């Protein structure tokens, strides 16, 4: 499981990491705006970010891949 998936449907509000960043388990990597709430999506495990697949303003559905790890 080298992917981080969106936990719910919403619009990408902020992207807080870029490719090459080291993230820790539990770190919020993006924030979604959904149901008028800011919803942080946290990394389920630590690792180095390989690719960020979303931009601010993108709609993502639950289960869509947000980023991949190396």
């Amino acid at each position, binding site marked *: 499981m080298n992917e981080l998936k969106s*936990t719910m*449907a919403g619009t990408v509000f902020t992207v807080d990491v870029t490719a090459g960043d080291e993230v820790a388990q539990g770190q919020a990597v993006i924030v979604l705006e*959904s*149901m*008028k709430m800011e*919803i*942080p999506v946290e990394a389920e495990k630590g690792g180095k970010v390989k690719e960020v697949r979303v931009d601010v303003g993108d709609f993502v559905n639950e289960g869509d891949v947000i980023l991949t790890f190396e």
Partner: protein
Amino acid sequence: MTVKPTGDGRLEEKLEQIFAGGQPKYHEKLKEQNKMFVRDRLKLLFDGGEYTEDARFANAEAGDLPADGVVTATGRIGGRTVCVMANDSTVKAGSWGARTVEKIIRIQETAEQLRVPLLYLVDSAGARITDQLDMFPNRRGAGRIFHNQVRLSGVIPQICLLFGPSAAGGAYIPAFCDIVIMVDGNASMYLGSPRMAAEVIGEKVTLEEMGGARMHCTVSGCGDLLAADEKEAIEAAKRYLGYFPQNFGEKPSMAESVEPKEGRPLGEIVPQNQNAPFDMYEAIDTLIDEGTFFEIKKLFAPELITGLARIEGRTVGIIANQPKAKGGVLFVDSADKGAKFISLCDAFSIPLLFLADVPGFMIGTKVERAGIIRHGAKFLSAMSSATVPKISVVVRKAYGAGLYAMAGPAFEPDACIALPSAQIAVMGPEAAVNAVYSNRIQAIEDPKERIEFIKEKRREYQEQIDIYKLASEMIIDDIVAPDQLRGELARRFEIYSTKEKTAPLRKHPVNPV
């Protein structure tokens, strides 16, 4: 267990065989799997390791089927009487023969008559196909076990500790229990094994993917608590029992009051910004006696927290939105989780505390297709039907049907209390202004003017839904300062403890499922 000699030694010899369980190679296998022998589990479970066993000699004459693969016993846990059935996986992999089934049925009947909790220690491969005519289709066959479980549901607590497999039909034992504690790595539940899935539908998966403990505790929701090992599972079951009465006719016992965990005050934990996440666990800690939180389904649908706790020594069931997970929005799974937990507490006279910070039920095609309306209806129905004392606390926002699900004023909570940070509305200001003034907003060409218009309308909306206005209209019963909330809840739960409320006269409601 040592056997004292009497008479000709025949009894001692037979008992030793029975207590030894299956062949040594199967005991070796247990060790490899980090599993305990059934009688060691029971020693750990019962006070002083003592218990009274029924039908020890079941199938003893068969030679290789000691106790017919199941121990049924009555003993004490924390001073209270409980009944237990426990599979012995060293005997034909804990499979069920005719006498196994009869023993399980009898211990269920005993628990019913004694009105005491029944624990199912499951570690079984399922039915012995060779014995099927004697144990599968008949009146006192395996089906009767499940029938009895349903009859006993809500009469006595039924607890499942899953130490190994619970396969095929046997998987319904955990399904009908109030709580399922699963041991990580060893416990599993499935209707069809991976081998059967490969043969019948062509799917290739591992046992863990198909029905492992972690999967059930995080994805399917069939498991309630994931234990690291058997000892932890047994300790969890003992702790869980401490919150419950012996049966529905009694009330949960009180404990010594303990001060809450030290930490930030509630007023500091809840942010003023309605949209910013915070950790509801930290808020719960300020209200309950330290070290008393027993969470149920922690890993499943984390946007709704459900757990047992004590407030000044009194058992309460807590249902709380978790803004840190999915913004606290209610989903299909969280609705089911809430419904089951409310039903559990109501059955055993455990009062309910709702802590609301909820933007509503999720919207969108994905959840509509998954039937969020009927799942939400289950949650509302369970909450609405519960006759135990119910206190609803609006911690921050309670929007839309979220207010209803969290025991809003219309659902006859004994009290609906707000913190000063509370906001109750059909929807939040942003969504409401967009909904009402969408055309007018679009018509304003100057962007600055448009923003000003939206700001003004949001301000007007905020005034309409001001919490003091709602208190003035007696929609909510009180506004309480965050640092006063624990004391307020303790007093109110004590007052409501004599509440008598009966359900309307009928056979039963037609439950939404």
